[in-house]
């Protein structure tokens, strides 16, 4: 087993996840929110791979691959939405997109 201990990877993963979550919560531009979401997903991926390696089993890595695929599709949808909003000259501000208010 080479490289640092699993704890180091987990600390970085937690840091990435927290960064992303903070971005989702405080930024108002949908583009940045999407970006922060990706960072959160990557944090989770890192944790998955770290554990996979720690336990010497491959399923964590496969899971990480699946997450990447889902993330890619999600970005396609998200970016498509943002482009559509830009075309209609809507404000790119998630707080103003509150038509679904009950």
């Amino acid at each position, binding site marked *: 087993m080479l490289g640092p201990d699993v704890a180091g990877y987990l600390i970085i993963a937690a840091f990435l996840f927290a960064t992303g979550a903070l971005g989702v*919560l405080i930024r108002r531009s949908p583009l940045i929110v999407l970006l922060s979401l990706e960072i959160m997903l990557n944090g989770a991926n890192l944790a998955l791979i770290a554990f996979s390696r720690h336990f010497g089993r491959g399923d964590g890595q496969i899971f990480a691959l699946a997450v990447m695929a889902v993330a890619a599709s999600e970005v396609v949808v998200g970016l498509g939405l943002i482009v559509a909003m830009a075309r209609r000259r809507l404000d790119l501000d998630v707080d103003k997109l509150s038509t679904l208010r*009950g």
Partner: protein
Amino acid sequence: MTAAAWVCLFLPLGSAGLITVLGTTITRRTAAWIATLACAGSFAAAVVSFVAMWGRARENRADLSTAWTWLEAGNFRVGLSILTDPLSVFMMLVVAGVGSLIVAYSIGYMDGDDEERRYFAYMSLFVFSMLMLVQGGNLLLLLVGWGLVGLSSYLLIGFWHDRPSAVAAAKKAFVMNAFGDATMALAFFVLIQKTGTLDYGLAFQKAHGLSSLTLNLIALGLLGGAVAKSAQLPLQTWLPDAMEGPTPVSALIHAATMVTAGVYLIVRTHALFELAPRIEDLAAGLGAATLLLAGLVALVQTDIKRVIAYSTMSQIGYMFLGAGLGAYANAMFHLMTHAFFKALLFMGAGIVIHALAGEQDIRKMGGLRRLMPNTWWAMLVGGLALSGIPPLSGFFSKDSILAGALDRGWYGDVLFAVGMAGAFLTGLYTFRMLFVVFGGEQSAYVQEHPPHAHGDRVAQWSMYLTVGALTVLAAAGGWLQFADLWTPVTDWLEPVARPLVEATGTQETIASAAAVALGVAGIAVAWWIYGARRATAPRPSRVLEHKFYFDELYNGLFYWPAVGLSRLLSWVVEGPLVGGSIAAVSELARWTGGRVRELQTGLVRAYALALAAGVAVLVLVFVAVR
């Protein structure tokens, strides 16, 4: 014998089903022929069973045939079975015979009605139900038939469903009959609990060991059913209203067959009634009261069909009197002759009503004798038979019932006197109707609406031929039995119902002479007032016009209290409690929804924060719990 009885039972049901299934693919006339042929076939099958039974030894004539076990609950078991014995064959002949004549008459009477097919399907259903009633091999099947005749009677009274009065009359008949059905069902429950069976033979046998209270309750329940179905006091008010139905329906259901089911019930279950002699006396008393009251009310009726309807009640009163006294064969004999002459009178009245474009008020009629001579003769025969004038059928049957009353102590003497008064009234009201309708000068209405034939030739002939056949039966039907010289009916029914009373020759002679004299006196008075118009008719008394206030009494006793209670409940319970609670529930849901709605802010970041907070809490919980 049994196979023919099954055929007899199910042919009319097949006809009803066939007409229903074929629907509009057949013409109305075809539907009429299907029903007529089915009833005629049923009658033929009844004749076959009769002949087969005739060939058997006397004690070997009852046959119980079970198709399968119909109901089973523990030890209690009821089979779908029919009983073919002298009494049921007698009734089968009357029901299917008169039934097929009346259904054939309907070909003409209902010709041109929009819903003729439905009518004939109902008529077939009725004939099936009535046969079920008389052929059922145990009390439960009798109750099934009992309910089914009530249903078909309801359907046929309300046949012209666009007339509110017909619908109301149908409901009234149904409700009053339901009362009788309920008391009968209660009697059966008691019987099941105490004897564990509803088979005729077994139940009658086991009934001997029961306490007199139980027996009285059972007999009273049965009597309640009989009284409701046969329109006797105090449940008689539905029958006159039932005249809203088509006239052949009145002839078949409300004169010849269904309303006499009560008499059949008493004779069939006479073993139970004999164990409760008080109730049997009550049956005879109710019959006597009804025959008198109905005869009085018939004097002032102005609707031709209602006159005959009250006369029917009165004649069934005679049958109840006979059955209650134990003169079973005489009651059944009167049932048969009554079926003939009363169906004849109704069908004659139907011809008159049709000829005068639907008019039923006898005050508008008059002088029809020259215009409709054949109908006049037919109805004259019916009227004379009804009044008990020899040698027509009513003479033989009614007088033997009254003679039986003389053989029963002081109670019988009272009933005899009432029956005699009834004989006078019968002559009076019957011939009042006949003289007003047929005698005298032609009324203004008749001159304005000259009688015209109804329908095509087939339709006319179907009416004339059946009325002709019934005229012959009403004239000659009584010759089947003549007091104690010649008693085939009594002998035939003896294995089923042995009479309790036996009038001597002297009593027969007294009864006949008195009854004929009073009947003739009634006719003479009617002729004096309404035929020759030597005296002005007395003003009808208010009590009679209100039919002894029975309708008013029942309205006051049951209808208005029920309405009042409903209004009170609607005011106290329905509004505040039921309505209020529903309003409160809906208000609560709206309020909750309004609060929950506020959570839905539409702000994505708020949702994300809630998610993050939730996860944080979960993580904290996990950490703390470990």
